[in-house]
């Protein structure tokens, strides 16, 4: 093959790659992008250029008791989930890190399991068990369920942080007079704080976005935002949904940015 033909083939191949990648990038980001203009339009169909401009849907959203309640439920649940999952998950990650026994292997497997098991299966199981204990349509019930889903991610993040941390410092703190718990809070936690923050963001986002389990175990006044959206989408396309979607998207992007910054800081500290 002549030089020229070779280069040409490479250029063609390269441009084919570029085109494909650019199209994929558009494919990936399109849904996120159209949500915002959609919420500023009164129409049920989005077309370019948008046919009408109106902030009426925003007013409807803030006026609607149902949607405001659902928002409150989702935000409270997400915050509580973040706190519970981060605390439990960090403690578990610490335990897994310092003990290397058979038990810790079992614990780790159990905590990672919710990632492999189909969520619909967990959902109906929880629905069934909650019915027995009157936990359906309650916020505590939601928080427990969402924490279950968030735990694996917290454990993974915090474990990574612990791995790049020098445990001798905790030993040093102990011999200087700190109990193990004190040493953890004084020395270890400050140094893995970025992993913990990133994990907390994950937990919050997972809870806010959780749709399947919430579908079953939340209802009435404790309906989550996702449940209302889902039920609403099933019937018809309400412009109000776009507002909810926009707000959720903005929140997601903020969480993503915080998480990336925290992870980057964690990597820099590790060296």
């Amino acid at each position: 093959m002549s030089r020229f033909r070779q280069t040409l083939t490479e250029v063609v191949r390269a441009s084919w790659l570029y085109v494909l990648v650019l199209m994929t990038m558009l494919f990936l980001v399109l849904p996120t992008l159209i949500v915002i203009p959609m919420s500023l339009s009164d129409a049920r169909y989005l077309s370019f250029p948008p046919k009408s401009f109106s902030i009426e849907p925003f007013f409807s959203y803030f006026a609607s008791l149902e949607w405001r309640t659902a928002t409150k439920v989702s935000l409270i649940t997400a915050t509580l989930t973040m706190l519970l999952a981060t605390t439990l998950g960090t403690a578990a990650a610490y335990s897994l890190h310092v003990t290397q026994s058979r038990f810790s292997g079992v614990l780790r497997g159990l905590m990672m399991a919710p990632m492999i098991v189909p969520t619909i299966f967990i959902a109906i199981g929880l629905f069934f068990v909650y019915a027995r204990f009157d936990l359906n349509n309650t916020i505590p019930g939601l928080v427990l369920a969402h924490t279950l889903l968030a735990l694996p991610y917290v454990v993974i993040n915090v474990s990574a942080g612990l791995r790049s941390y020098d445990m001798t410092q905790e030993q040093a703190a102990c011999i200087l007079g700190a109990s193990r718990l004190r040493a953890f809070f004084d020395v270890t936690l400050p140094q893995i704080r970025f992993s913990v923050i990133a994990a907390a963001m994950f937990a919050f986002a997972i809870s806010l976005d959780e749709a399947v389990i919430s579908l079953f175990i939340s209802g009435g006044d404790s309906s989550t935002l996702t449940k209302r959206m889902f039920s609403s989408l099933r019937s018809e396309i309400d412009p109000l949904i776009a507002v909810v979607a926009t707000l959720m998207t903005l929140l997601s992007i903020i969480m993503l940015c915080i998480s990336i910054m925290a992870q980057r800081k964690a990597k820099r500290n590790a060296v």
Partner: protein
Amino acid sequence: MNRTEPGARNARELLKAERRNRWYLFGSGLPALLLVLLTFVLPIGWLFWLSLFDANGQLTVENYTRLLEPIYVLTFVQTFKISIIVTVACVLIGYPYAYFMIKGPRWLANLAMGLLLVSLWTSLLVRTYAWLIILQRRGMANDLLMSLGLTDVPLSLVHNLTGTVVGMVHIMLPFMILPLFASMKSIDPIYNQAAAAFGASPSRAFRDVFLPLSLPGLAAGATLVFVITLGFYVTPALLGGGKVQMISMRIESDVSMYANWGAASSLGVVLLVATLLMLFIVKKSAGLGRRSE
């Protein structure tokens, strides 16, 4: 193994103290363990139990034998079909994307990763809703197709298989690309350089060196996508409408419409077993593949 004689100084108390210490350390993980037991092991165990009883409370296998009926078989077939299509699409689209994230110009590669993350972090429901908008009869997709002259009438792109596949591919792409990217990143560029030094053209080097080395990451991503798609609910439910029914949707209707716990639980068990089996098979063959190297 302990060489200390039982009468050795303080030995018994020291052993007790050691055991106590180990429990303290393990105890740190107990709250999490408790939560997992109560919200995960207990419900799932109960479901397994439920699948063995019929509506009258009698022990039976009919919940499982019912799954061999044509309606259910159809659901299984459709679920697997969708999973396979989605997986193949993700491989075809995801591999070049991951490759670009490694080899492309820095700023563009970072943008590619950034957009991937934005997609991943945007709420699942929001993205599914967005696809509903885009793919509807008077939506963007049809507008584009008609303006390009590819069709005269708006196509039915949603509430059917097409819509489901498009939505699922979008949701699953990050799960394909991220493991693949991680795997590709760990391939030492020295291999490609060596191949080039031996006279291989870039495409030859890719085919003979890079591609085989990236296969484990590809297998991991593909498995992940396949297995998650099998049990996925939200996106197929909204974008599939009436025409598509996957196992997850069947489970949902069995519970919320018919309150048929026997049927729902047995179906769920089968779904779980299929998932675990797939993971097991892939893990084993990955091990075998590595041994043959």
